[in-house]
Structures are given as C-alpha cells and as structure tokens.
C-alpha cells in the first residue's frame, strides 16, 4: 500500500510549492514591478530617488543571481485551489509543508518560524498551523505562495469601527501608516479588508494583496492619495510615495458591525502561483 507521501498528487504539490516559494522570494510579479517602476520615475525627493535606485538595482541583482530579494524570506502563507477530482485530505497539507521545508534548505530561506511562547526555532519554516494554508475550490489545481515579512506584518491592524462611521475607514488606513512610519519598508502595498467578521476582515486584507496592483478603483485611489499625503516616503526618509497601491476586498457583515483590517505589505509584494502538474 502506498503511503500518502508518495502519491502522485503529494509529490506534485510538494514540488509546485517549492517552485512557487523559490519564484516568490526571487522575482516580483509583473504588476508589482510596473508600479514600482512608475513610482521610481515620478518620485521628486532626491533621498527617496536614491532609495528607489537601490530597490530597482536589488530587483535586478536578485533576478540575475537567483537569490532572495530580501533576507526576511517571510512566513509561508499558502493559497490552494483544488479542482473537483482532488480530494481534500491531510496529505495536501503535508505536501505543502514538505515543499516549504525543501525551499528552506535549497533556495535557501531564512528559518523564521518559532514557537510563539518558548521562541524555539523549528529551523524549517513549519510549525503548528504553519504554513498557513487556505483552500478553495476551482477549475485548476494551483498553489500560491505569499511569503510575508515581519516588518510589514507587524504594522498591520484590525478594528471594529462603528457601523455609522463608514467615512472613518480611510482615516483608519491612514493612521495605520502614520504609526508604521518607515518600519514596514515603504513604499508599501496596503491590503484592506472591509466587512465580514473580526477574523474574516483580516483574511480579506491579506487576500487583497494578491489582486492586480496596477489598477485601483476610485475608492482605493482616494485612500492611496491620502496615505501619500503623510509624506513618510520610501523607508521613512520622506518622499512622495508612502504607498504604491491600496487594494480593497469586502464581505457582507452584521448590520451592527464594521470590521476593518489593514494588512501592510512592503514594496516587495512577493507572491507566486504555480499550477500543480499531475
């Protein structure tokens, strides 16, 4: 009898996770590169232009040498899309974890995952509940890896606003960046989750980071403009670009609630999707 570890699905998913992780930490998606490039040209502060020059050079060097863009290779956040004929079993979770362990050794990744209380490092970027795996049904079998760095994650916030204060959402997002200053490695991407429940708003905020960032709705653009008025600039050194894009995802919510979450993402909005070939 086959053990779950050597079924074709397990092997293919572990391999796809490894490849998605490697790609995500080395190369940024095209839409992310596009908005960084546009901002680098438009920035007017000399110090900030120097920061953009380093960022563009870094993107080039990482690509050329095949090394991670940032030494904080993040904590693994994984989105799986599974077609009807793939059973949702523990084996899928184990396969993703195996891909993460392999990426840690071979890319290599910095071992970032620790026990939250003892702070003991697991040394392979897995742990209880980590990689965080979100599964949804779909036509294709795909794995998306979103490695999340701590500087930006630590600046993220969730709040339960008054339902009559819809106009306060923008202020909450702007205030989040006021408190964050240079810590999340601006210019940032801001994923904003609005509605749902306390936990769903945060999940939406993170998923919003996967949306195309080279277009914004009028609402998203307005929040982005207000954030940029703070003038925090690249790395908190002052400048025109504190945020490169704001992306919003919404869900229905209780009539008496207005959950809002802001997931802050550094300029390196890393994520990669790979189709699992069976």
């Amino acid at each position, binding site marked *: 009898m086959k053990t779950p570890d050597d079924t074709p699905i397990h092997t293919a998913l572990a391999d796809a996770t490894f490849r998605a992780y490697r790609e995500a930490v080395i190369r940024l998606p095209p839409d992310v590169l596009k908005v960084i490039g546009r901002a680098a040209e438009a920035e007017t502060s*000399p*110090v900030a*232009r*120097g*920061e953009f*020059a*380093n*960022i563009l*050079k*870094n993107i080039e*060097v*990482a690509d050329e*040498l095949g*090394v*991670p*863009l*940032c*030494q*904080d*290779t993040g904590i693994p956040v994984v989105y799986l899309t599974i077609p009807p004929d793939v059973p949702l079993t523990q084996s899928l979770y184990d396969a993703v974890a195996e891909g993460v362990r392999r990426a840690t050794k071979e890319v*290599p*990744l*910095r*071992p*970032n995952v620790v026990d939250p209380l003892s702070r003991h*490092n697991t040394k392979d970027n897995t742990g209880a509940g980590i990689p965080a795996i979100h599964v949804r049904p779909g036509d294709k079998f795909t794995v998306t890896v979103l490695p999340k*760095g701590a*500087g930006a994650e630590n600046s993220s*916030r969730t*709040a*339960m*606003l*008054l339902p009559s*204060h819809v*106009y*306060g959402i923008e*202020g*909450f997002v*702007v*205030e989040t960046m*006021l408190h964050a*200053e*240079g*810590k999340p*490695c601006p210019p940032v991407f801001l994923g904003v989750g609005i509605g749902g429940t306390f936990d769903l708003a945060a999940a939406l905020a993170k998923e919003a980071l996967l949306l195309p960032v080279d277009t914004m709705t009028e609402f998203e653009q307005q929040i982005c403009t*207000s954030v940029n*008025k*703070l*003038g*925090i*600039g*690249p*790395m*908190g*050194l*002052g400048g025109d670009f504190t945020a490169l894009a704001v992306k919003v995802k919404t869900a229905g919510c209780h009539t008496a609630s207005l959950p*809002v979450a802001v997931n802050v993402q*550094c*300029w*390196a909005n890393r994520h990669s999707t790979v189709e699992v070939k069976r």
Partner: protein
Amino acid sequence: MSTRPVQLRTPLGEEVLALHARDRVELSGIVYTARDEAHLRMQEKGIPFDPKGAVIYHCGPVIQENKVIAAGPTTSARMNELSGFLIEKGVRGLIGKGGMGETVREQLRGKGVYFAFTGGCAALASSHMVLKGVFYEDLGMAEAVWVIELDRLPLVVGIDAHGNDIFGAARTNAERVFRSYSATPCTGRQ
C-alpha cells in the same frame, strides 16, 4: 543624485563628524551584524571585537556555505535601548532601516552617525559583501554576529552627529498632516 557619494572605510574616525543627514555614502571595510540577542549578549559579556571606530549593521542575514546570500537591514528601532553602550565604547556608525529614537540621536551627537540602507535590498547588499568570520554562532543564523567586509555599500546618512534626523523630520511632518486631516472622528479607537 547630483553630488557623488562620500567614500568611507572602516574603522571610522572623526571624518564621520563632518557628515550631514541626507549625504550619500559608499562604505567599505569590516562591519559587524548584530540584532537584539547579540546586543544583549555584548552588553552582558563584552564586545567580541575592537569597538573603536567600528560599524554595527542591524541585520540577520541568510548565510549558506560561508557565503552571504542575502543581507538587507532589519528594523533598527528594536535596538533603541541597546545601542548606548556600543557608542560609549567607540562605535562610530550604525547601519539599519527605519531610523532610531531620540535617545540614540542624542547618544550619537558628537560621536557617530546612523546610516540608512534600503530595506528589502538584501540581494544588492550581498553583492557588495564578503564573509570574514562569525561570533556567537550559537545564537542562530539571524542573531549571530557576522563579520562582513563591505565593498562600497550605498548608504544615506539618516542621523548625523549634529542631531539632524531625516526620519524624525518625516515623522513630525506626517503627524502634522494627520492632525489637519483627521478632523473626522474614528480611527479605530472608539
């Protein structure tokens, strides 16, 4: 980007006192990485290298087979309360991201500077680095003190020895903008 960057080599001396916030610098020579754990141990057990004119890099790199793979800066503010003793012992430069608090700004006055290196630029950094040694390897890859030789790492002076602080200026400005903007109530503090 009009003027050419100032060329500096470690160990640093009084030349750092002439630097001004916003100056671009290319730094060469030995630097020592240190994060929270290394600072705590150095404070307790002494500094394992000569601190005179030394430069500390707030960084937890990825090292593989004695090579620096990725070595961008970490958030310096975590070391706000842990840097005074190093400056006292002769450290002339700190490199990191995000700036440091008022305490460090005052500690650097007349003694040294804080250099900002672009966060997330770990590949660029490693292309300017050669690994020379390590202290405190038992603290793990991210927290160990790695001895690294730099070849013209592009930096900007974030805090100078005269009390000028670009981060502080940006922060003050952002607070002023926010005060005038947030006439509307509710920013998550009901």
